[in-house]
């Protein structure tokens, strides 16, 4: 996995590089937006970490050019935006321009690496047929699930709910958005039904250390898998 860091602060750039290298990624870093656009057009990266506050060509412009240039390529290049957040609403603007996620400086490194993992997993899920989460593997083509190598029986609705949660690991997914993703046209699915599916999923997954948190009054969050 190859990551491009675009950050003009040398201290932060070197810190990010070291952490991501320690996680096993190949890392390239530049402090100039122009270089980043050029590099992305010539080489293949799996993820870009992009600072908004760059000198000359700012992060928004880099993001815009990456999106224009990337539209004819196979898969979308995930972009994680770093922002110092004041003045314009950087976050909203970044997400509007097609950033996949944002982080506000300063941030904790474990959170950064978690977000990077989630983004990479998501982009692979788009392209590839397999979603992996700790001991859990979903083969989206064959629609079969495996837990620690053993086949796992999942009802269609359970599968659908799990797929939604897996697409947004470490993020709260509201019940409403699960209903929207799971219910077919004209179908009326109650929040209670979602609770039932989630509790069945929990019964099947928690013995393997995969945890689905309830966020009261809001929804659920699939926690990142941590080796015990």
């Amino acid at each position, binding site marked *: 996995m190859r990551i491009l860091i675009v950050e003009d*602060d040398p*201290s*932060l750039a070197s810190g990010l590089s070291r952490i991501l290298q320690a996680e096993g990624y190949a890392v390239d870093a530049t402090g100039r937006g122009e270089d980043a656009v050029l590099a992305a057009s010539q080489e293949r990266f799996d993820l870009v970490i992009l600072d908004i506050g760059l000198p000359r060509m700012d992060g928004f412009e880099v993001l815009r050019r990456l999106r224009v240039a990337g539209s004819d390529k196979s898969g979308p290049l995930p972009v994680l935006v770093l922002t110092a957040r004041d003045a314009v609403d950087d976050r909203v603007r970044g997400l509007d321009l097609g950033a996949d996620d944002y982080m506000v*400086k*300063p941030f904790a490194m474990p959170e950064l690496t978690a977000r990077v993992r989630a983004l990479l997993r998501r982009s692979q899920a788009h392209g590839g047929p397999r979603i992996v989460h700790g001991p859990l593997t979903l083969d989206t083509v064959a629609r079969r699930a495996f837990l620690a190598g053993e086949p796992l029986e999942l009802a269609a609705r359970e599968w659908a709910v799990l797929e939604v949660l897996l697409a947004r690991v470490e993020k*709260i997914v509201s019940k409403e958005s699960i209903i929207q993703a799971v219910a077919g046209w004209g179908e009326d699915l109650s929040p209670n039904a979602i609770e039932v599916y989630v509790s069945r999923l929990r019964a099947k997954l928690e013995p393997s250390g995969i945890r689905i948190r309830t*966020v*009261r*009054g*809001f929804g659920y969050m699939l926690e990142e898998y941590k080796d015990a």
Partner: protein
Amino acid sequence: MRPRSLRAHLLRMLLPPISALLAVGAVVAYYPSLEPATEAYDQALVDVGIALGTHISIADGAFRFEVPPAVEQVLRTDRYDTIYYRVLGPDGQEIAGEPLLPPPPEGAEASAELISYDTKIKGQKLRAVSVLAPCGRRACTVLVAETTVKRSRLTRDIMFSSLFPEILIAIATLVIVWFGVKRGLGPLSRLSEEIKARSPRDLRAIDAVAAPEETRPLLDALNGLLEQVAEGNRNQQRFLANAAHQLRTPLAGLQAHTEIALSQPLPESCRLQLEQVHQATIRTARLANQLLALARAESGGRASTSPVNLKALVEGEADQWVHQALAREVDLGFGLDPATVDGDALLLREAIANLAHNALEYVPPGGHVTVRTGLRDGAPFMEVEDDGPGIPALERGRVIERFYRIPGTGGTGSGLGLAIVREIALAHGASMEISDGALGKGCRVEIRFPHG
């Protein structure tokens, strides 16, 4: 000093000239009409004098004067005035009548056949005429005088009839000025109502179209000032944005490197110190964020005001809090109903984030924190409720002071959180209320917005 009332000032300026005009008008109307009237009365006296003169006769070289009772009667029956007469011989000898009636003074008004003059008898004001009457070959003098009751009445009547309409006109003028000024200043009152109703963050130019022409210079000056303030705000916003970036980026670097260092095997003493550095970095970053938010809230500036959906705002932020909640083993819950307010999304997010962080920080493990949005009695609100130690009623006034922390509390807060929330609430015309949580336990902080 009391401000000068434009109306009172106008009236004060108008009153002297109007009074002067009134006086001049009265004089101008009075004398021309008084003269013919006085002449008519004088003529009547002359007629009496001539009539009396015919009653002088000469017998044995002596003058005699006898008035028939009918004439006497006429003289007595004047309704208003007492009439006096005196008949003098050609050489000035007393013939008849009232001897106290003075003769005309030297240089009295004289025409061919009569002399008229003002005089007095026993302190009474009189108008008198002197008429010559034939006495044989010579002429006798007949003086006739009457009191001035009739004449005073006439004077009064003339004065009144000429002054009355003028006084009416003067009063009407003052009334018209009084209400005219009020009416004329009406657009100004409406403007001031409009300005009063503005939020302090609203620095748009005042619409001068509806205002009277004369107030344009004032409005232009005011709008110029507003523009300058707005420009100052924009400069401050730019400065804050730059400062934010300049501060946060090196802090991010510092945090990254301490975390890298901490992830490596270290001697225990070194690790403890590095952990202190790490904690201090995080606190500094949080403090920088809060100070910037506070400055932003205070600087006003309406640039980024737009309709903000509070429910979506909290949903977008919830991810950030849930990790803190998990780390502290606090149950974080939500009760989100749609509610929309006009405001600065960034500041509103900062406000609710501060409330959530505060609650998550001070609630002990196993506690509950609930974030709510929605409408209460039709007014949008957002609130955070917890079942932690709460804020004693006596401290509630103080916790909104900057850098104030309740003595003996743990946590690593700067004491700025609630001061920021309050400032942000004020900037949105909203109120911040601190009350007990449900069941009298913990604490509930509510931001209540004005009715949409």
